[in-house]
């Protein structure tokens, strides 16, 4: 039974990814300005050069051949050439993926832990001042504009307090004596964007946790556990949390899928060289192959994250096993 549903879910995931790929492909055909129009704006481009480009990008072929070639190249890991960087898209993305995963990944981990704990305390102290305060904090940070928060944090911690650098990933022109020194410099640069990102993310986790846990705590089986003579801590740990974590798992998985996409706002404010800022650069340069490559990565990781969420869910919730 289990194996069958696993296979079934995998097939769904593959179909979704396929649909996403086709959509992604079509999206970039529909967008105004094909790759050649950029070329043609260059006064030095001769008709022969343009024709050569057309052939190079396969634009002289019928659409189905183009679609076929697109998939064929994709399977070979070839995402095309970036106009702007004049490099294969895959290597441009490859160079920018780690900073994003480190920064956003770390921020997610911090936010998940902090959010769960805050939500848990709020639910446990429901109706008290602590609950109101955490609720307020969550709502405010949740709805705060990210770039604005980023700028405030820069002003406070870098400009006024001189605690951390304002931007970048390493101090420019710095030569490091040891690897340790380099790592330390990296971490100093990492702290502010991670902090900003965590604050933005905490609210959603805290609110979701608080609400699900509040619901769970009013369930009959919690009264049963109390009637059996267990103390509050045991009830929370053994009965309330396993139930309250179910919706959290979905939320976490979906958000982790978005990690790869980075965050355009935070990365731009802090000049963090990740995929978010890359997306912004690609957009400004109308670098369609690059943009397409980033989109592809993001959508595929969201689908994969959903798939993982589904599977995890079926392990922790006995009701969805079948």
């Amino acid at each position, binding site marked *: 039974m289990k194996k069958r549903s696993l296979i079934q879910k995998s097939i769904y995931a593959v179909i979704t990814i396929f649909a996403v790929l086709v959509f992604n492909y079509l999206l970039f055909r529909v967008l105004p300005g094909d790759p050649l129009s950029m070329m043609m704006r260059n006064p030095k481009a001769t008709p022969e050069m343009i024709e050569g480009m057309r052939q190079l990008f396969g634009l002289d072929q019928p659409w189905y051949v183009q679609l076929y070639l697109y998939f064929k190249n994709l399977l070979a890991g070839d995402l095309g050439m970036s106009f702007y960087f004049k490099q294969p898209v895959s290597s441009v993305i490859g160079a920018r993926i780690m900073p994003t995963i480190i920064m956003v990944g770390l921020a997610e981990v911090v936010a998940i832990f902090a959010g769960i704990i805050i939500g848990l305390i709020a639910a446990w102290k429901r109706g008290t001042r602590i609950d109101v305060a955490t609720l307020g904090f969550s709502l405010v940070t949740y709805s705060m504009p990210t770039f604005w928060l980023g700028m405030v944090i820069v002003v406070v911690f870098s400009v006024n307090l001189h605690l951390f650098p304002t931007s970048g990933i390493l101090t420019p022109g710095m030569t490091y004596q040891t690897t340790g020194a380099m790592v330390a410099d990296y971490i100093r640069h990492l702290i502010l964007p991670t902090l900003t990102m965590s604050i933005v993310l905490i609210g959603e986790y805290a609110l979701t946790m608080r609400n699900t846990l509040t619901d769970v705590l009013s369930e009959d089986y919690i*009264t049963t556990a109390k009637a*059996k*003579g267990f103390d509050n801590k045991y009830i929370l740990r053994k009965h309330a949390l396993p139930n309250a974590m179910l919706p959290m798992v979905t939320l976490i998985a979906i958000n982790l899928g978005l990690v790869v996409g980075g965050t355009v706002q935070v990365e731009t404010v802090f000049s963090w060289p990740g995929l978010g800022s890359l997306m912004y650069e690609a957009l400004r340069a109308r670098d369609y192959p690059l943009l397409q490559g980033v989109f592809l990565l993001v959508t595929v990781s969201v689908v994969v994250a959903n798939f993982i969420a589904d599977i995890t869910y079926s392990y922790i919730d006995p009701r969805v096993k079948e």
Partner: protein
Amino acid sequence: MKLLEVENLNTYFNTSKGQLKAVNGVSFDLEYGEALGMVGESGCGKTTCALSIAKLLPKEGEITGGRILLEGVDLASMPESEIRKKRWKDVSVIFQGAMNALNPVMKVGDQISEAIVLHEKGSKEAAKRRTGEILELVEIPAARGSNYPHEFSGGMKQRAMIAMALACNPKIVIGDEPTTALDVMVQAQILNLLEKIRKEFKMGFILITHDLSILGETCDKIAVMYAGKIVELGTVEDIFERTAHPYTQRLIACFPNIRGEKRIPEGISGSPPNMLALAPGCSFAPRCDRKQACCETLEPVGKQIGEKHFAACHFALGGGAIE
């Protein structure tokens, strides 16, 4: 010593609309191996009574007066940490709507054995063995203990809940409508089972229900509740054959008699009073066909009209006139 003596119990809820006297001066007692049935319309305070005895009231509920003596020890004034040791070991509850009373992500067997481990301080293996036995007792194969609640039918969940309630050999089991959601066959089966177990283990049993007819068969005594008070209390014979209180009479008339002539049960006209604003005098007065002028000003107190028979009515049958 009596197993349980409830003396003048008062339980109030603090609501946004004011104080709600859900249980208002309730007294009764229970012997070892005895079964007491509690009936009354929805909202009359049956569940609140049960939750008070088990000390499981929600935050807004409070026992404001009276004593709950379990083998002579007062539970009403006992601190939470002491109560916790008594729960399930001394008093267990089969909750109203057992459908949701089981944790959906925990195996049924584990939910039973965790209570055994907590109270009996034995090994996990011993608890597991006992869980198997107790499941068999309610006619669930021991192996089904490794199932999750959603894999059980409604009747099985109900029986699993009963097994859970019996797991630590409690002195008192309170069944709050333990069979309401079940079909008649299963209902009878479960009630018979409970009766058998009660007699075997000399357990006290309080059965709460809307359905007067099932009390006659399963209980020794019946308490009829109305608006937070016990209006009539007596043996099954007292209640059915020497009915004293007008409300009890109407309740009995509500149930069709299979052997009797064909007629539509009467029902009770009017509705239960607003518990937030109880008028002085007898709460049943607006619906009572025996009422006199004094009923609306003077609250009737319970008076003894038979050996174990009490009724709170100025004009209770079998008793004298107004005192």
